[in-house]
């Protein structure tokens, strides 16, 4: 009888880091082809619509990057938190509060055509997210409150605050009573990178954040201390690393990135505040962080992939009128294989005969 076992490798295999995603991709193509065949579809053309068609136009690429940018930005913050064993499930709420803070500036000072308005909004977005993240950080440090629960619940609080604001104090007085703010003044918006497309200057923030996150995690001593605290808390105590600081940094950084992303969404494609700002970026970014193996470079690929899956899913639903459940199944298959193939970096497969 044969038995398949996983045997730990003596040290991680670096080239597997590159090969594992390719294996995952091949397996996904095989399995999803069977799925498409069973639905009477041509697997090749379906896959083409999923992966190639969304990127076949410049506008498609613009949409791709526009969606990937907040996912990457939030994913970076979540990665830094998880390295320190701080699990932020509340990026969605921090995103919302960041957007509210920036949106308030936009509405209050939008008419004045101020040069400082957009930079101030960027700052407000980050600070708003950080303020929202400071609540779970304070409760965790002072009362050892579980940050997963606190951040998760604060999502709903943030959503309700936003709902109150766009229905009340911040509602557009000339908006026919729609629950939304007035449209932002152009001075409160990111300028488009390419005329006629939605991709805008905010992408620069994400690019800078990737570099900073890489520096922080890979090169900075504070990042190292946080990783040690996450991997071996007793060793961090033994070495004298400040655990409370790790919790604060982990949450504040992820709050800042999520708040920034919220600001970028409000001052970019949305151009106003509406009751629902995020199509689930804060949660999807958790997947992005793990698909990216909790590294900044990986998060870039993870964000691009999940953004593409989102666009591709829409494309096949529209052009092949496939039900949403099929595209979800396909997305799930890919993510499943991606995460499963990661095992090969640390383990090897051995086939044993009994």
């Amino acid at each position, binding site marked *: 009888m044969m038995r398949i076992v996983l045997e730990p490798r003596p040290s991680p295999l670096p080239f597997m880091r590159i090969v594992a995603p390719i294996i995952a991709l091949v397996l996904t193509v095989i399995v999803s082809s069977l799925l498409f065949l069973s639905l009477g579809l041509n697997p090749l053309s379906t896959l083409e619509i999923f992966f190639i068609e969304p990127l076949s136009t410049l506008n498609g690429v613009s949409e791709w990057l526009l969606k990937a940018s907040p996912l990457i930005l939030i994913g970076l913050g979540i990665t830094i938190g998880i390295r320190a064993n701080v699990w932020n499930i509340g990026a969605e709420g921090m995103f919302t509060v960041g957007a509210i803070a920036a949106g308030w500036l936009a509405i209050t000072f939008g008419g004045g055509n101020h040069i400082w308005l957009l930079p101030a909004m960027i700052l407000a977005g980050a600070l708003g997210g950080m303020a929202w993240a400071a609540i779970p950080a304070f409760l965790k440090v002072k009362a050892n409150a579980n940050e997963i629960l606190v951040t998760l619940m604060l999502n709903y609080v943030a959503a309700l605050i936003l709902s109150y604001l766009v229905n009340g104090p911040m509602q557009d007085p000339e908006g026919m009573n729609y629950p939304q703010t007035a449209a932002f003044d152009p001075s409160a918006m990111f300028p488009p990178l390419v005329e006629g497309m939605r991709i805008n200057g905010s992408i620069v923030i994400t690019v800078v954040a990737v570099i900073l996150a890489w*520096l922080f995690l890979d090169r900075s001593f504070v990042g190292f201390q946080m990783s040690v605290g996450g991997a071996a808390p007793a*060793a961090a105590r*033994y070495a*004298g690393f400040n655990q409370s600081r790790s919790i604060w940094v982990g949450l504040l950084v992820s709050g800042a990135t999520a708040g920034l992303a919220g600001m970028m969404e409000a001052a970019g494609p949305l151009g106003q505040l509406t009751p629902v700002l995020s199509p689930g970026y804060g949660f999807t970014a958790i997947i992005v962080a793990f698909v990216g193996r909790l590294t900044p470079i990986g998060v870039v690929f993870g964000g691009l992939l999940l953004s593409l899956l989102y666009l591709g899913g829409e494309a096949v639903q529209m052009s092949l009128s496939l039900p949403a459940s099929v595209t979800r199944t396909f997305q799930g298959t890919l993510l499943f294989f991606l995460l499963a193939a990661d095992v090969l970096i640390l383990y090897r497969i051995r086939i044993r005969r*009994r």
Partner: protein
Amino acid sequence: MSAYRLELCGVTKRYPGIVANDGISLQVGPGEIHAVLGENGAGKSTLMKIIYGAVEADSGDVLWNGEKVKIANPAAARRLGIGMVYQHFSLFESVSVVENIAVAMSGRFDLPALSTRIVRLSERYGLPVDPNRLLHHLSVGERQRVEIIRCLLQNPKLLILDEPTSVLTPQAVRRLFEVLRTLAAEGCSILYISHKLDEIRELCDTATVLRSGRVVGTASPKLVSAAELARFMVGAELPDVHRDPVALTPHPRLEAIGLSARSDDPFGTDLSDLSLAVHGGEILGIAGVSGNGQGELLSLLSGERTASADMIQLDGQPVGDLPVADRRALGVAFVPEERLGRGAVPTISLADNGLLTAHADGLVKRGFIDRQRVAGFAKAIISQFGVKCTGPAALAHSLSGGNLQKFIVGREISLSPRVLIVSQPTWGVDVAASAFIRQALIDLSRSGAAVLVISEELEELFQISDRIAVIYQGRLSRATSRTATNVEEIGLLMAGVGPAFQTAA
């Protein structure tokens, strides 16, 4: 039908880069106590894992009562009647003793009945343990009892023990040996892995000696001298520690004055009015049965717990209320008892593990890590302290216990500390590495540092300490010069007998 309970024929196991076991053959008869003797990395643990089904051999046969068997996993080994007590215990921290034992048992999950069996068995073999205590409250010695009882409940025909006496007092070792002899007399075979030659000579009928993955011979340990066995095992003369005369600093470098502290742990030991002073130039050894307050003392001295400022002084400066980082900055270094997870982060490289405590040594510039220097620091430790590994990039958990300990001790010594506090410096470390570590500690003290060693190995304390004190139920006896005392006297103090502990509590 073979007369052997267990027979190995040409067992070979290769790992990338090394042959852990190279054509190993050995035979164990029923009721025989068989030693497997060898240095760290000689392949003892791998061999035992093969017998226990935790690792599969590449080639070779395992015969059980004369029949060829494939032991696919530990459950299969247990079904055959093989029990194993690992050096690093495989117990769950957060649940009770009886629950820990229950998970390894087949059959119905009946905790009260199992508790009764545990108590009965522990009384029969003299292994006292309370089934309802939570595991993380137990000392290392007590955990070992749990492991042994867990094995014995399965009525093993072969019991494997990996370095079982590392943490036991002389009396406890004697009790363990009685248990093992009783078991052997009842027909249970015992495979006893150790590098402690005196114990092997006292206990074992036969010894198979391994070196670099190969059997270099079989001996009757009762008939040969310890020195002969040692040469056999190491393949060379044993290094002996040497010490230069003591030149003490005029004032103590490390002092604890009336240190009292309640334990964080409801089952822990409170420290009461504990005082000690260590001068630069000497080693103070603290003996004691595990669970008498050593853990509490160490965490208070290291700063992982704080006390009131005056209770702990460093070169006369009160530091009792300072956290770890501040004490380290003042020149205190520590080697904790737990290597993986406390002294070192298992999943990161040796280089990064150097950075863990040596970051103030110029490895970090303006908040950024100087990778080259970090690697260089680790490389220097690896070569100076003879750490066997693939290099600074090797992950900490890929090293054997002894080699990792050399790295940790080396790292802390490389910080040139004023005060070094070490717990269990050579727990589970082989002869050559132990001698090396002990010599390094002596050399550090002679260079002017104050060295405090907390150990449960009396032999070790007598080898390296200049003065020895005993910790018992959170109180410390007066330190006596090593030459003015002896093992028996210290052994009595460890059991709480003696004038030192008769003062009012």
